[in-house]
């Protein structure tokens, strides 16, 4: 059965990778394919790229003229213009063409996947939704890696090593931690934070480390292990019902922007990454070459950077794939429940949610869901195939 399972995964691997690449490509360049903004425009001897630049941020002849025509690019005349492959407004609401079934036409436009209750083209809406979903999830994964992987691996590297510190150093360190938390708390209450303050923090941190190093050489020593820090971090987040805290954080910080939602999702992804990084670091710390590297006099940071991080990261690849799969589902679930992006921003979850009131529009439920399912399944199976391959390598 195990071989059959591997065969099945192997058979799916290539089409999955191809389809994932295709989906990534399509979603990255969706505005080049479908939209109403030209890709390149030469207007009054100046060149503009409306798809990738915010032309309203600077005063230009094009921006001024566009504001006079309600930002409708088609109403201006250009010396050179390159339009997207399909000139179609995805976000435009047109109730006259609402509830059109798949493969139907209206007003000279063809709708492959039909339209929703607001008359938006489902195909374009699905791609726009997928783009925002992938953007949020990729950012969440990157932030999660930064918050979970690097600190956890650094702490876990010393996890089972018993360190010694002088009593004076220990007290100084504890007071320092308490003071930092206190200062951050006060500043957050005052809602006052600027770059001068951050640089002051940085200078304070460097000075404190210097003093700590000096103090560590004075008096009696006490032993301690770093591992409890990672375990405490993991356990706190384990006890938190994650989806509840996602809601709370989104409501608290009123994060309707994709980057805010990514950050909130990353906060709950980071402990999972930290947990697996810890396990992987502890496993690899006992490797013979790492022990010999230590005895040869390499610094801890060099060992981490050159030897440990690449191995741990390779171990994390299947997990990241699984996490991506679950993040896509979580993000679309949030959108489905109406928490997250602004109502006017298209997302796959909100497309399905809005179709609940119109049970006859089966296409509005089916197609966005199929896209979420396909991409989530692809990431899941890719993670699984990677896990199987690593098992085979060990065997």
């Amino acid at each position, binding site marked *: 059965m195990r071989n059959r399972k591997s065969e099945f995964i192997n058979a799916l691997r290539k089409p999955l990778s191809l389809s994932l690449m295709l989906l990534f490509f399509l979603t990255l360049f969706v505005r080049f394919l479908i939209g109403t903004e030209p890709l390149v425009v030469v207007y009054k001897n100046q060149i503009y790229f409306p798809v990738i630049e915010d032309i309203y941020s600077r005063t230009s002849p094009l921006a001024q003229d566009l504001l006079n025509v309600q930002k409708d690019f088609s109403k201006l005349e250009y010396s050179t213009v390159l339009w997207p492959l399909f000139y179609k407004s995805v976000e435009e609401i047109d109730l006259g063409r609402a509830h059109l079934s798949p493969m139907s036409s209206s007003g000279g436009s063809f709708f492959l996947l039909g339209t929703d209750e607001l008359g938006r083209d489902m195909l374009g809406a699905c791609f726009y939704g997928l783009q925002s979903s992938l953007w949020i999830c990729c950012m969440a994964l990157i932030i999660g890696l930064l918050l979970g992987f690097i600190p956890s691996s650094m702490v876990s590297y010393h996890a089972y090593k018993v360190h010694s510190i002088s009593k004076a150093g220990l007290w100084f360190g504890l007071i320092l931690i308490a003071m930092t938390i206190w200062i951050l708390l006060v500043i957050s209450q*005052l809602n006052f934070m600027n770059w001068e303050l951050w640089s002051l923090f940085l200078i304070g941190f460097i000075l404190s480390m210097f003093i700590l190093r000096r103090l560590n050489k004075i008096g009696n020593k006490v032993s301690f292990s770093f591992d409890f820090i990672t375990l405490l971090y993991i356990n706190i987040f384990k006890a938190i019902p994650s989806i509840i805290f996602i809601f709370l954080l989104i409501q*608290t910080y009123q994060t309707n922007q994709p980057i805010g939602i990514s950050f909130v999702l990353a906060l709950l992804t980071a402990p999972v990454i930290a947990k697996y990084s810890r396990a992987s670091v502890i496993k690899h710390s006992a490797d013979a070459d790492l022990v010999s590297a230590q005895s040869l006099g390499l610094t801890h940071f060099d060992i981490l950077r050159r030897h440990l991080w690449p191995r741990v990261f390779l171990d994390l690849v299947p997990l990241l794939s699984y996490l991506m799969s679950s993040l896509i589902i979580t993000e679309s679930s949030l959108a489905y429940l109406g928490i997250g992006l602004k109502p006017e921003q298209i997302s796959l979850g909100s497309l399905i949610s809005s179709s609940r009131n119109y049970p006859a529009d089966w296409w509005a439920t089916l197609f966005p869901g199929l896209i979420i399912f396909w991409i989530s399944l692809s990431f899941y199976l890719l993670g699984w195939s990677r896990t199987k391959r690593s098992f085979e390598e060990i065997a």
Partner: protein
Amino acid sequence: MKRVVQFFGYIGLALLVSLISLWLTNRIVPSENSEFINEESTDRSFEVQKSIPIFYFSLLPTFNEPKLSFRNFIPEWRWNGVENQFHQLITIRSMRSNVTYELVAQRVFHSLKWTMAIQIPSLIILFFSSFFLSFWISKRHNKIGKLVFQLLVFFHSVPLFWLASCLVLLFSVAINLFPASMVSFIHSPWSDVLLGSPQYFVLPIVCSVLPSLAFLTGLMVDTQFQIRDEVFWTRALSQGLQENQLRQFELKSHLLLRISAWFTGAIPSIIGGSLIIENVFIIPGMGRLLVQSLKTSDWNTVNFIVFLTAVLSCIGFFISDLFISKIDPRQ
């Protein structure tokens, strides 16, 4: 002694989580976008709530002038007594909803019963079906076994809300076999509905079981293969023990260990209720109450749900630890 310390550690963790939740909700600024049911009253009660201190004591100074001055960084010890939000939360009795002014505990426990009415049958079905399926798949080497496993893998990646929406479209709208909405039973006791109209529970339970079934069965199948590769298994077989005997005495304990580990992680979501299922099928459970409370800024209810979930989860973790130490054949 070790277990007692562990128990109090878990309770401390739950209280810490509740405190974080309280702190977060106190930082919320009422937004114009919130869907207030009764905007005026909610706003007022929320502001009254915020004027009460969060914990038994305070250290933060009262900021007369919001600027960076040395005075603002000097801690100011104040004893708040029992008139604080945290005390109200853990003593349960006096806390009232910011929106409906009902007792929060009463509302939440009513919802908890509904959640459990869905989750407990789902869990029972899930355990038995995954046990049965994993044994069946590991025994079978034919196309049906392979197909079942592939189907399970697909189900694991299906977004729950989409699965629920599709099932509603198919079974409620198209063929009208199972009803989809429990909106008419919101104020009824769960037992009356379960005994009188069990058809309402079919789709929610199916939706709860299917995605987890795939994961749990896969986990068990993998565990079975891993254990069969172990030395003790081959040795026991070579000494004349039957495979059925081995399965009964060795495999079950290993499988239970894996399930316990999975169950520990799933406790918060089980207690918190499945937000998606309860919202799609309009079940008056904890998940739906939570979403409604968040949308209407009923922070007392939200805090109480977080507190209850954290405490019950931590108790669950402790019981799970005890259970694992009891059944682990290596200990």
